[in-house]
């Protein structure tokens, strides 16, 4: 399929932004200045970006605890995100949510989610709302291989099927539900067939391959917008870091991540493909790398210098009125 130059450049910029953001959060977390839990998306960039490139302002996504990539792909402000992760007043959620609750409903991002399987019902609601309000919008439920065994996800697949809602169920299978292997924990071992059991068509793609995700998502979103009911995608890849920062990952075989980084890096794949096919030049990609590096530097510097929330912020934003 043809992808425009602008779309290719935009996609690469987003994937590079996610990678730089996550690598930098990994480094900064080790300094002890980032509080709480963070779950990094490095290695999974092609999924969030390949899907979100098909979306626009009337579309919504529901995310997971590993939500930085989805947030960036859907258009959340990167400096606001970094401040949020540091717990700053200027953060996207005023420092009240943190890494696991980054959200910006104004750009269609319904929230990272601290509860495994929390998002799919919300995506159903956003899709229901889009359908009833006739906005033409669709909703994407990103969820992991752990959430694929949650009742909420299975209920949501049935719910979306019954009402033929424009929901894209995107199973991001990074091989591990926390520390438990997805090859062991998904009964039936065939997610696409499971989706088909709900009457939801789907396919499986290699999540290291941006073009595979992009093509599958483009087809699915076209069907969603045509009113053909919910769609399903099983994306496989491996995460570069632990379940959370600080996870020693002794459940993984030695060398797994090193090999993934060397041979299965979605950014390296992308560059080789577009340069090899003479769609983009190395210089254009290098320029994006530099710009993104500067942006992330600025995000971290801003976050480090930013003030924390004020004491009075503790009591605000619980209710609209009370």
């Amino acid at each position: 399929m043809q992808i425009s130059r602008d779309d290719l450049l935009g996609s690469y910029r987003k994937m590079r932004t996610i990678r730089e953001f996550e690598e930098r959060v990994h480094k900064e977390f080790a300094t002890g200045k980032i509080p709480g839990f963070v779950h990094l998306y490095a290695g999974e960039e092609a999924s969030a970006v390949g899907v979100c490139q098909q979306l626009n302002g009337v579309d919504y996504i529901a995310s997971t605890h590993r939500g930085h990539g989805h947030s960036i792909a859907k258009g959340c402000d990167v400096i606001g995100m970094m401040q949020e992760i540091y717990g700053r007043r200027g953060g996207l959620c005023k420092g009240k949510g943190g890494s696991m609750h980054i959200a910006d409903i104004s750009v269609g991002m319904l929230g990272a989610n601290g509860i495994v399987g929390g998002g799919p019902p919300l995506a159903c609601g956003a899709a229901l709302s889009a359908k009833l309000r006739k906005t033409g919008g669709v909703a994407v439920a990103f969820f992991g291989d752990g959430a694929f065994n949650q009742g909420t996800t299975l209920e949501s697949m049935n719910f979306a099927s019954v009402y033929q809602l424009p929901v894209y169920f995107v199973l991001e299978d990074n091989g591990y539900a926390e520390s438990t292997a997805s090859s062991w924990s998904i009964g039936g071992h065939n997610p696409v067939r499971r989706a088909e059991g709900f009457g939801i068509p789907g396919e499986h793609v290699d999540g290291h391959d941006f073009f595979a995700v992009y093509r599958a998502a483009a087809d699915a979103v076209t069907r969603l917008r045509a009113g053909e009911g919910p769609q399903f995608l099983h994306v496989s890849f491996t995460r570069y870091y632990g379940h959370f920062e600080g996870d020693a990952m002794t459940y993984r075989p030695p060398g797994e991540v090193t090999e993934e980084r060397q041979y299965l890096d979605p950014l390296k794949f992308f560059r080789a493909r577009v340069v090899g096919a003479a769609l983009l030049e190395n210089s254009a990609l290098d320029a994006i790398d530099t710009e993104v590096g500067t942006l992330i530097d600025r995000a971290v510097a801003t976050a480090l210098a930013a003030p924390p929330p004020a004491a009075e912020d503790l009591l605000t934003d619980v209710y609209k009125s009370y």
Partner: protein
Amino acid sequence: MSKKSFRQALNEAMRQEMERDPMVIAFGEDIAGGMGAKGVQDAWGDVLGASKGLLPEFGRNRIFDTPISESAFVGAASGAAVTGMRPIAQVMFVDFFGVCGDQIINQMAKFRYMFGGKATTPVVIRTLFGAGVRAASQHSQCLYPIFTHVPGLKVAIPSSPYEAKGLMIQSIRDDDPVIFFEHKAMYDDTEEVPDEPYTIPFGKARTVREGADATIVAIGRMVQYASQAAAALDADGIRCSIIDPRTTSPLDTDAILASVRKTGRLIVVDEASPRCGMAADISALVAQNAFRELRAPIRMVTPPHTPVPFAAELEDLYVPSPAKIQAAIAETVRYH
């Protein structure tokens, strides 16, 4: 103004709000009551008939049955609400909240705070509660203390048909998530209810009656029982105030404290389990803020700390009766 049942009051509130605002939709378990079956499409109109007639009037885009998937449809209500709609989701009995607790406790309740004030989630969850119809342990609980405990939720518990209509309309128009409790044994109660729409503000208690000797705070169906007890005590010259908080979140602490400061005595009557419930909460409020004004120990009249039993003889012992309330008031007033 005409006599309406609790059921009719709710029906009228939902119908008038659905007419007023096209963003108001209603869905849940059997709320149409027959969709997809071969008979009448709104055969039930809700398990106790509160939404009967709304499906033919508003059509399947505005009111529809759901699969019995509480997590999916309660979560979908939140997702629809944060994207611009005003859903009423019906979880048939509050006992079923156990299967969708996450979507209520961790999702809708917390969006606004977690997202730094940038989310508005105008959801109403309607649910039946309460004992007295021999429905046993899994269909008779109150559970509103659990929701009251969760910041971000509002909790409304109407005590009569008039209250039901006004509080329901307020719930639908409110911009925060509201859990709306309907006592299943009150559905056939009737009283004068205005035909036109009206709201009852949250956090403003109703003074059911005023008297100088004791303050009774009663919730939901217990307002009726407390009224019967207070009426019986009139003959003995004991004059009681009765306060119906209407909402446990927000709670009108000012009204409760002001009344206790006048009477010096507090009896809290609650149908919920006694531990960590509203009776304990209101007792603590008064003990902490009106200690010097108290002339007798605070009394809590609640069921025992047991599940709700099935057999009529046991259930009748379980629910606080007007006689038990009357005895508790009399003892409190005579204490010295």
